[in-house]
């Protein structure tokens, strides 16, 4: 308290570790959200997170796990419905996400002695992250990293052309389902960092910036990770020094980076002519 300008690493290393770890994996995963147009799926996962939080409170489980559970349920339900119904994916997602959101709200209202920190849920509570939280996040991120590493080539292949991938022996439906499950993991993790309201931005914005500079899918993933990490560092510092809410600060940084990238590539484009 004596020196407000100093960074208390004792207090901040856990938030930094959790935030940077999340941003590293949000980079490559966010690329697929952009390529496969899964932004609305991300939003639906975010909506379903409220039900996950309610279930966590009900059963006294860590919310990251129950949010992951509802996310996986949403993903699998969507895959089933896509195969069986004539509705388009966005209609199905609209139905599912709001049903789950409504179920979450009803369940929260039914809980006795309810004390939900709505701000933490909506905007993340990275500064309040505990060592136990970080362990769980690290575990989830490790699973995500292994899946991404092993499925990278098939994921790129189905992004390029599904039938071409299929003709070359890739199980398209399986890979796509795996991607949806990976997103459920990412959302459960990102909830802690930027909250449900802003979580898709951490996936989409860095990837959208990286796209302007990358020459290959791998480059795009690495650049997106780097931008995410910079935004997490910037957001945490801003939050620490200016006492701003941490999740919105991080997202604000990504947004500012995006605007800068527009100007920068605009200049580069002008230079080419």
């Amino acid at each position: 308290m004596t020196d407000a300008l100093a960074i208390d690493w004792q207090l901040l290393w856990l938030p930094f570790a959790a935030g940077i770890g999340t941003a590293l994996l949000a980079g490559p995963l966010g690329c697929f959200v952009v390529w496969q147009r899964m932004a609305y799926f991300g939003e639906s996962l975010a909506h379903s997170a409220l039900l996950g939080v309610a279930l966590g409170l009900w059963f006294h489980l860590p919310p990251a796990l129950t949010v992951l559970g509802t996310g996986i349920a949403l993903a699998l339900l969507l895959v089933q419905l896509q195969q069986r119904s004539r509705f388009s994916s966005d209609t199905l997602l609209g139905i599912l996400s709001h049903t789950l959101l409504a179920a979450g709200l009803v369940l929260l209202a039914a809980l006795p002695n309810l004390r939900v920190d709505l701000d933490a849920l909506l905007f993340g509570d990275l500064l309040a992250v505990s060592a136990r939280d970080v362990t769980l996040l690290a575990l989830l991120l490790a699973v995500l990293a292994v899946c991404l590493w092993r499925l990278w080539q098939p994921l790129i292949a189905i992004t390029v052309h599904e039938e071409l991938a299929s003709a070359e022996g890739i199980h398209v439906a399986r890979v796509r389902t795996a991607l949806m499950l990976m997103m459920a993991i990412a959302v459960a993790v990102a909830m802690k960092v930027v909250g449900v309201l802003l979580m898709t931005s951490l996936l989409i914005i860095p990837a959208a910036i990286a796209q302007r500079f990358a020459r290959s899918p791998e480059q795009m993933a690495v650049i997106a990770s780097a931008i995410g990490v910079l935004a997490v560092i910037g957001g945490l510092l801003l939050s620490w020094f200016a006492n701003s809410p941490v999740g919105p600060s991080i997202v604000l940084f990504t947004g500012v980076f995006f605007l800068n990238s527009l100007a920068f590539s605009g200049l580069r484009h002008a230079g080419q002519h």
Partner: protein
Amino acid sequence: MGQCAIIATLLHLCRPMPDHALTSPDPDTADRLLLSARGLCVQADGRTLLDRIDLDLHEGEIVTVIGPNGAGKTTLLKALLGFVTPTAGSVTRSDRLRIGYMPQKLALNPLLPMTVQRFLQQTGADRTMIRQALQETGITGLQQQSLHRVSGGELQRVLLARALLRQPQLLVLDEPAQGVDVCGQADLYRLIATLRDRHHCGVLLVSHDLHLVMAATDTVICLNQHICCQGRPEHVSQHPEYLQLFGRQLAEDIAVYTHHHDHDHDLHGNVTGGCQHGSTLHTHHHGCRHD
């Protein structure tokens, strides 16, 4: 006894020729059967897309499926490749058949950065193999080019190179000449025939343009939900002008060819039918010279 033998011989001669005899390009080598369909039916939403299709494809053979829009050509490919489950009938692919597939169109997401090299690396090929494949398809040195910036004709050749890098026993090409200018189309079909000779793979080709593929194909299957007719086309490579002229007449080709259905597989009738449009053809030919 003697009479019986003569009758038997006559009956034998009158019998419809088996597919293999009709289609095998080289009778000396016993070409392996790669793919066959029997009584293949596909229905969707109560509509029949494919009706009792029988089809055989051998090593070293080029089979072209032609038909008007909506005839079920792409559905047939998808059913043969296993992307679509048949409602009835069966598809048999030879054991561990390596297929090089060239889709009708590569609608690459504009946000996915991808060079030609990276695209071809997805087959697991190394730089040397990629260079060779590009050389073979006539687009040497395109490796570092962005896939978003190659021309329509180059893109088709990149797709063909990718199919080749699979070391295919069977090439499946869905309208390979789409988006390619007329002169390029003829080149592309010539290239496909060359590739067949060099790799001795089977080729299954979909086209809506009979005349361009005639020179490069062993068997033509006319499809309009069911197989209207099939057989060996006239060998028209001796008439390059004819080939060239008809290549400029996509719309009328389809008309001529639909008309041709009613005449069963009399391909000569097709020639006469085409010539009736001689004056129009000439104009078109003239127009192309201006280009």
